């Protein structure tokens, strides 16, 4: 004869989308019910209510996580952020080398100046620029740390996707809108044209643009 508590419990659990096979749910419910006698109806009902609320909580949590679009964070935002940070390191390194080259030239010129007061002042200024240029090393190390942190976040997001099943986080499954690409969330008609500075090797060069525009 069918156990009404068992059937009710199974029905409630199946109502929530918790990625479990029916056979697994039946096994779980049977193992729980073994511990209760026929007269423990009140206890069974309390247990039923608790399991129902846990299942409801898991379902709500999955919905909230899906609305965060972790697939998009992993595939788009994290790699883009890491690329931009790498580009900052590359650009500041190049700029620092340019500054150092100019200072080295200035230093050579100052050696030919006969007035020692003037050449000393130039040398002092050049030294200060050398000292200031060490910022590139410090900022480079700090940015590397941020990139490492982003990679750590990416691994965690990966695990999250794996734990809950990737399909539920796709836009069609959640009905969630694609996250705006701008940090301030403002959407505008030319949003697709706003890419910021191109990374090295991407986009087109000034020469290519001049050729396209017909400039010399």
């Amino acid at each position, binding site marked *: 004869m069918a156990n009404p508590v068992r059937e009710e419990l199974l029905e409630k659990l199946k109502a929530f989308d918790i990625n479990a096979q029916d056979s697994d749910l039946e096994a779980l419910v049977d193992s729980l019910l073994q511990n209760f006698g026929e007269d423990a109806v009140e206890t069974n009902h309390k247990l039923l209510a608790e399991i129902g609320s846990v299942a409801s909580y898991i379902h709500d949590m999955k919905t909230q996580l899906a609305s965060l679009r972790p697939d998009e964070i992993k595939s788009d935002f994290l790699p883009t952020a890491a690329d931009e940070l790498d580009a900052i390191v590359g650009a500041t390194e190049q700029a*620092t080398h340019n500054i150092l080259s100019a*200072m080295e030239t200035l230093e050579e010129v100052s050696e030919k100046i006969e007035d020692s007061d003037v050449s000393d002042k130039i040398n002092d200024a050049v*030294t200060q620029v*050398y*000292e200031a240029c*060490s910022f*590139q090393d410090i900022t480079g190390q700090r940015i590397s740390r941020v990139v490492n942190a982003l990679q750590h976040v990416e691994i965690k997001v990966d695990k999250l996707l794996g734990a809950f099943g990737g399909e539920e986080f796709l836009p069609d499954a959640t009905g969630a809108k694609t996250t705006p690409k701008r940090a301030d969330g403002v959407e505008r008609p030319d949003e697709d044209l706003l890419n910021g500075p191109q990374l090295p090797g991407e986009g087109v060069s000034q020469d290519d643009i001049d050729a396209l525009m017909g400039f010399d």
Partner: protein
Amino acid sequence: MSDVDMNMPILIVDDYKTMLRIVRNLLKQLGFNNVDEATDGSSALQKLRGKQYSLVISDWNMEPMSGLQLLKECRADAHLKDLSFIMVTAESKTENVIAAKQAGVNNYIVKPFNAATLKKKLIAVLGNF
């Protein structure tokens, strides 16, 4: 009069080329012109085993061999154990300083640093110049 040989061979080690260039230029301003460069600990060790240097000025945070590992390798090598070694690094936590001291570093400069600090540390290691 200076007791320091201003033509002594110095090896500077850093994975940031800008830092190598800055340290080289600051050393030049102080009168040291015989300066070689390496971009990590293992290439530095190769250079140290191929030529006799009087001083190493090394960054800590490098791959695959760090400045601390380089220092330990030097101290474990009969030919390099007495080599003067200055660590120049942003790693300024107490445990880092202690680890470098225990490994036998001669002096320790925290980044960012200025020319005056570099000169002061060179005098502490090499003597007045």
